[in-house]
């Protein structure tokens, strides 16, 4: 008579029970907890972690560990934010007939060499150049791409933000100013510069995202190579990867970079969603998570690569003797994890419309490991489930939601997470021992 499922399914079953229990308890206790809106919100809040944890699942299944995931999220988010077009648009009062200017002319205006609109084909009116404050990104961009190293003339007026530029330009007939590329210049005339809408540098969103994904792939592959070719411990290599990615994020920019590109502001939130009627919709982050989950399930259970991952985690030595291409598989595993982290970074830019070298992915490496373990994957490798990881991620999300509903302090999240980790690790221990005992007799 067999009442219990095979030992390796026990942790997964426990995970499902915890998930279901938490949800039912929450739904009974709080109004609105069980609503579709709250469920979607919880999944959305955990989407980034979910994406990253799926990559971590493969690493842990193979018996490895990846500490770099959070930092790679930050770096790739920074890459997207920094690679998107940035720059300025040049504005004049609406009644100014001049609508065309070349970049050289613009430089001469601000250098004090062109001083009258007549010289630009307009009315005989003195030009009053207005500039954004020093150290603003618009100012930096203008100095770099327009002034090309020449200083501003003394009579250029400084103002402190785009709306001040607007006010100043609207109130001064001869004024010329520039605002951020993404500022809506309503009530102002915009000058075409060399036939374009502004001075801008950058890639279109698809290319920027591709660049970020490539960076994640490259970091993952690099770590995988170090681990395989030089037999270095994954723990240390991915620790170095974490330091490297964090540092590199700060090299791109030391502060958070806001994203104002319409693709991220509008397209992502309005067009690339699945409406469910009413106010409800499945946001892009969740679509990405579910698509990645489906791909990962297929990869883990229906491809040779996936089965090799399990085999390596079960016994690396046997896998080697079976000729399973252990080295290649290991490099691919870390590459895949790097890619997942990069997707996590891209999801961050979808969700938060910025790149942040400091806050993005902070502590995510541990959350990901916790989610994987709670999801029933053995930390020693060889046994585990991609679907379980999603459950682990959702459990963490439900705990956060309950803590919000209870209105208690957020640090309880950490303590409860620690206790859950402990419970699952002890359960794994117990199960492993039980199955070993079974094998002996």
């Amino acid at each position: 008579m067999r009442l219990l499922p095979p030992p390796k399914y026990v942790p997964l079953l426990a995970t499902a029970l915890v998930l279901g229990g938490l949800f039912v308890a929450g739904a009974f206790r709080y109004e609105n907890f069980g609503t579709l809106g709250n469920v979607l919100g919880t999944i959305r809040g955990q989407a980034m972690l979910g994406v990253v944890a799926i990559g971590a699942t493969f690493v842990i299944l193979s018996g490895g560990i990846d500490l770099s995931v959070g930092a790679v999220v930050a770096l790739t988010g920074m890459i997207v934010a920094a690679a998107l077009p940035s720059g300025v648009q040049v504005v004049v009062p609406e009644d100014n007939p001049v609508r065309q200017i070349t970049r050289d002319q613009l430089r001469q205006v601000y250098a004090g060499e062109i001083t009258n609109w007549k010289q630009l084909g307009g009315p005989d009116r003195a030009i009053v150049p207005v500039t954004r404050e020093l150290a603003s990104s618009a100012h930096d961009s203008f100095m770099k791409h327009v002034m090309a190293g020449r200083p501003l003339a003394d009579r250029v007026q400084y103002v402190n933000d785009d709306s001040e530029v607007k006010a100043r330009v609207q109130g001064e007939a001869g004024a010329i100013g520039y605002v951020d590329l993404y500022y809506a210049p309503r009530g102002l005339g915009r000058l075409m510069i060399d036939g374009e809408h502004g001075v801008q540098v950058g890639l279109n969103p698809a290319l920027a995202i591709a660049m970020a994904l490539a960076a994640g792939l490259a970091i993952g592959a690099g770590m995988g190579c170090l681990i395989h070719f030089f037999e270095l411990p994954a723990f240390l290599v991915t620790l170095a990867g974490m330091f490297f990615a964090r540092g590199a994020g700060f090299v791109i920019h030391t502060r958070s970079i806001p994203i104002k590109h319409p693709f991220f502001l509008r397209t992502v939130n309005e067009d690339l969603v699945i409406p469910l009627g009413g106010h409800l919709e499945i946001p892009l982050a969740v679509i990405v998570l579910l698509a990645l989950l489906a791909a990962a399930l297929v990869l883990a259970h229906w491809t040779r690569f996936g089965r090799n991952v399990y085999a390596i985690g079960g016994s690396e030595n046997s896998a080697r003797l079976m000729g399973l291409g252990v080295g290649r598989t290991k490099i691919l595993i870390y590459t895949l994890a790097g890619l997942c982290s990069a997707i996590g970074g891209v999801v961050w830019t979808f969700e938060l419309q910025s790149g942040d070298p400091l806050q993005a992915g902070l502590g995510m490496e541990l959350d990901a490991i916790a989610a994987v373990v709670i999801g029933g994957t053995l930390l020693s490798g060889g046994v585990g489930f991609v679907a379980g990881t999603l459950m682990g991620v959702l459990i963490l999300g439900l705990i956060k939601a309950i803590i919000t509903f209870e209105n208690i302090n957020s640090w309880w999240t950490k303590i409860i997470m620690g206790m859950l980790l402990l419970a699952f690790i002890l359960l794994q221990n117990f199960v492993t021992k039980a199955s070993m005992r079974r094998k002996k007799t």
Partner: protein
Amino acid sequence: MNPLLQICGLTKSFPGVRALEGVDFAVRPGEVHALMGENGAGKSTLIKVLTGVYGRDGGSIELGGRAIAPRSPQDAEREGISTVYQEVNLIPELSVAENICLGRQSTVGGLIRWGAIRRRAQQALARLGLDIDVTATLSSYSIAIQQMVAIARALDVQARLLILDEPTSSLDEQEVAELFAVLRRLRDDGLGIVFITHFLDQVYAISDRITVLRNGKLVGTYEAAGLPKLSLIAHMIGKDPAEVEAMSQAPPPPAPTGAEAFLRAEQLGRAGSIAPMDLAIHAGEVVGLAGLLGSGRTELARLLFGIDRSDTGRVEVEGRSVRLGHPRRAIALGLAFTPEDRKIAGIIPSLSVRENIILALQASRGPWRRLAASRQAELADRFIDALGIKTPDREQAVANLSGGNQQKVILGRWLAMEPRLLILDEPTRGIDVGAKAEIEKLMANLRQKGMAILFISSELEEVVRDSQRVIVLRDRCKIGELTGGQIDEHAIMHMIAGTQGGEHG
């Protein structure tokens, strides 16, 4: 008949060791060919070169008349050479079907066809006459079945040569018989089978021809039917057959003194490990434990030393009832134990010879009463001298010593404790003949000084030569005890084989 596999002049060196020197080896299709030799003879190096784990330094390998140079086990598999290793090298947590097809699953558009894999696994096992649920995890089956699965996996590619590296060491008699039936069937299919084992009987039961290696060199290849067992042993240990004949008929050592036993166990046993048995070991006596690997020899030693806990029986040391259950307690009672697997359970590899020698003594004193540096040096030097440990100096890391010298370091560790009972589990495994002789001489010396010794060895001849009393184990049970003049190899072998005949001689 043209040979299937033809190896000529194979040479392979490792830093400081000449592992293979100009070895010739040939296997015909449709034969079981035993590869014999003591540990260190070069068998495993030969296999590893053949399967592409190691490269070779010289010589040629031809399979089916074509020169091959496998660079990985997978490469070798593609050439038609498959290997089954001693420890089942499969993935215990994956299913049987998956273990058979791993790495060569049939796919459609990159996706695995699980149905096809199950059918293929069933077919592969059917070829071995096995019908089991292939979707169950491998670890839910016995070692014998796992072994069969490993063979099925090896045959699943178009194998022409099957290498079995000590496949029988964890199998019981019935299972061995089943395995042999499978091997005969495969042989009749025209497969070439290379069979490595330490069990001489099995060699004669299954092999057509026997090749003997010694110290990396070829001794010779013989028809099994025409090679007496004694000659085979002689070839393996590099002695004259006549000399071996004399050795096995050497006069038995003196019988033990009839004094009070140092250690007496009654109905000592542990479920799943060893059936309850009685045992007595006297001071000044070497008790040999004979039996095949897996017969319960090591399990008994582990019980006595408190590594595993007994669940039946009682133990008396010098007439006082004691509870064992932890090595520290056993050590405090005057027991010492050199384990079978030196690397896993014996040496502390990166620590020095000195530290390895004083470790047990220091452990018995606890952390706070540290042995003075001068005393440590003196102890280390004393045992380096007394045991003839070859090391540049006492601060050398033990990992840099040869196997025999490592074994002596472990002996030194225990002799420093001045134990009353020394349990030696395979002390001579994997070390050179010279060191073996020294260790046997040492045992005799210690016995004469009044130490009790429990001696475990797979080399029957050693057990016979060195013991005053021999306890014979089979299938985790004590099946008999021989003393003095009764002790001889034939008697023991008959007891192990279960054919009565122990009373002759």
